[in-house]
């Protein structure tokens, strides 16, 4: 299966007021295969959103890329100019954001805002063709009565409907990759179920990257899971591997901390402390201060990424059954600065 997006030892950080660079994303390696859905999970401050914004080339101005590549169909997105990126954004790779309430312009009709994407990417299209296309797209995402709805404004739509409008806008150019950044977080469960159902159907036409803190959402639609902690990929593997056989102490803690429908009323497992700030990252393993299995070696040495069975990777000093060293992930710890 061919890789649509491949992160190769990608690192980025932020420049602070003093001009120093604090590294956030460190040596990120994972790929998104064609027609598959990848879930990127972790708590806030773990660099999930920066990962997705890196693909789009929409990083904030204080961000500094420190090395590595993000390959899209084999070419490096980081080397592309702004004009080249504009052609990719929206057309090849599209993104849905968290807040459907703020992502739409309140003074323009829904129809205009969706059609605008087509107008920019296909300037030769006729006005009536655009309208037809927009109505078709609205119908596809399950908005009733689309002929009338195209002329309405965002305030006339409910939260769930606005998120559908956002999805319609993202899909109108039939992108190869759709990035959903906490796209269902602000929605009620019943509406979330509707949107997840819709996103599941999208997989037939392209790849999906789902950025979320909700492991339930990942279990629902993803084939592969990437677990991030404080800017590093601590574990990745197939959905089965991560959910049924999690290895990294962080992944295991995360899963034990979530109350589920089957959990008893015993005390919940907790990971002590919180995700550290970017200035407070440890030199070695960034999970070190919160880890209950920590070893002496963890404090000052970046843990190696080890390959377990079936493309299941763990970045940890602990020893696991069937592990083998993985050179792809470890050979270039050569960030320009730290």
């Amino acid at each position: 299966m061919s890789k649509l997006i491949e992160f190769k030892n990608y690192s980025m950080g932020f420049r602070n007021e003093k001009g120093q660079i604090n590294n956030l994303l460190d040596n990120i390696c994972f790929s998104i295969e064609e027609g598959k859905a990848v879930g990127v999970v972790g708590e806030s401050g773990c660099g999930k959103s920066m990962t997705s914004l890196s693909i789009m080339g929409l990083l904030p101005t204080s961000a500094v890329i420190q090395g590595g590549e993000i390959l899209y169909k084999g070419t490096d997105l980081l080397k592309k100019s702004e004009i080249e990126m504009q052609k990719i954004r929206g057309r090849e790779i599209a993104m849905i954001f968290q807040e459907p309430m703020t992502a739409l312009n309140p003074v323009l009709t829904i129809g205009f805002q969706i059609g605008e994407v087509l107008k920019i990417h296909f300037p030769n299209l006729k006005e009536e063709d655009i309208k037809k296309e927009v109505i078709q797209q609205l119908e596809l995402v399950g908005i009733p009565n689309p002929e009338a709805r195209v002329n309405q404004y965002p305030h006339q739509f409910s939260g769930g409907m606005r998120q559908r409008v956002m999805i319609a806008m993202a899909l109108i150019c039939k992108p190869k990759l759709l990035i959903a950044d906490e796209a269902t977080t602000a929605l009620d469960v019943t509406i979330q179920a509707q949107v997840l159902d819709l996103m599941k159907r999208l997989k037939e036409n392209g790849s999906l990257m789902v950025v979320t803190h909700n492991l339930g959402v990942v279990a629902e639609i993803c084939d592969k899971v990437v677990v991030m902690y404080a800017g590093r990929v601590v574990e990745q593997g197939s959905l089965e591997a991560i959910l049924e056989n999690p290895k990294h102490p962080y992944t295991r803690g995360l899963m034990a901390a979530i109350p589920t429908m089957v959990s008893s009323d015993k005390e919940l497992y907790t990971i002590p402390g919180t995700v550290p700030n970017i200035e407070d990252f440890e030199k070695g393993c960034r999970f070190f201060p919160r880890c209950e299995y920590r070893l002496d070696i963890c404090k000052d040495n970046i843990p190696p990424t080890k390959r377990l069975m079936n493309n299941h990777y763990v970045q940890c000093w602990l020893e696991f059954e069937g592990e083998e060293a993985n050179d792809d992930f470890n050979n270039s710890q050569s960030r320009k600065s730290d």
Partner: protein
Amino acid sequence: MTSTILKVENLTKYFDLGTKWLQPSKYVHAVENVSFELLQSETLGIVGESGSGKSTLARLILGLIEPTGGKVIYKDKDITGWQKSTLNKVSREIQMVFQDPYASLNPRIKIGDAIAEPIIAHKIIKGQSEIRSEVERLLKIVGLQPEMYERYPHEFSGGQRQRVGIARALSLRPNVLICDEAVSALDVSVQAQVLNLFNHLKKQLNLTYIFIGHDLSVVKYISNRIMVMYLGEIMEMAPSKFLFENTLHPYTQALISAIPEITTKASKKRIILEGDIPSPVNPPSGCRFSTRCFKVQDICKEKHPELKEVMPNHYVRCHFIEGSQGRGE
């Protein structure tokens, strides 16, 4: 036998949208005819989508807004509505923890002073040093260090701020704590810490909780009984165990089936409700859930169902649920 600590009788709140000339006045039917009893030392969970009236109900109980009708009775005393004196002894026994730990603390007030404020206002303790040691005791109870007294809110993480919010609510030594989406804004690892804290405090201080949330698995974890609300009405109310093992109301069934489960097993049959929660300005006639119900019949659109006790302690509002087995007609 545990005693009833709080009793809510036919509580109703309509928000007036203002009258236009020659037009009938419009009301938001936020809470309609809600009655329940809260038992000493239990945790009552309230779930429902946004717009179902959960927060309005909490505000009505606290007396922050005036109800349109109905009564709130706390330990046999009527405490309905806005109290003339906010220093009323009864009202301070019911306290609230709010959703947003970022918005509910004043950034320019040291957290120690923020916790001390209600103690001073209610004159619970007098004397500078006594107040300070009380605040330090509260900080310890919620799992913060007493040295944090001097710090400002921006120095705290979301979970720590929520602990400050809890300490502040506890400063008046309440019997009943209303938690309105108190863990919704927190990350999962922090959420687990705060949920455990709630459970510890319950035992330690003999508290009674009303726990409002939209995440059913969280509410199930913490609650003894759960009340499901939809458009201002109670749809189903039962002990947590019964609610999940013997789900009777179609809305509760849909709500439970909509939760994405962390499992790789083939997903259970999912009930996907169509559309959104209708506007509470013109709630549907008959059963309020009739516009989205997958079991809807003609009678649902015409006749308003009553809340019935179909089994001991298990209340359901549906035309098609009757008798002990919960299946009828």
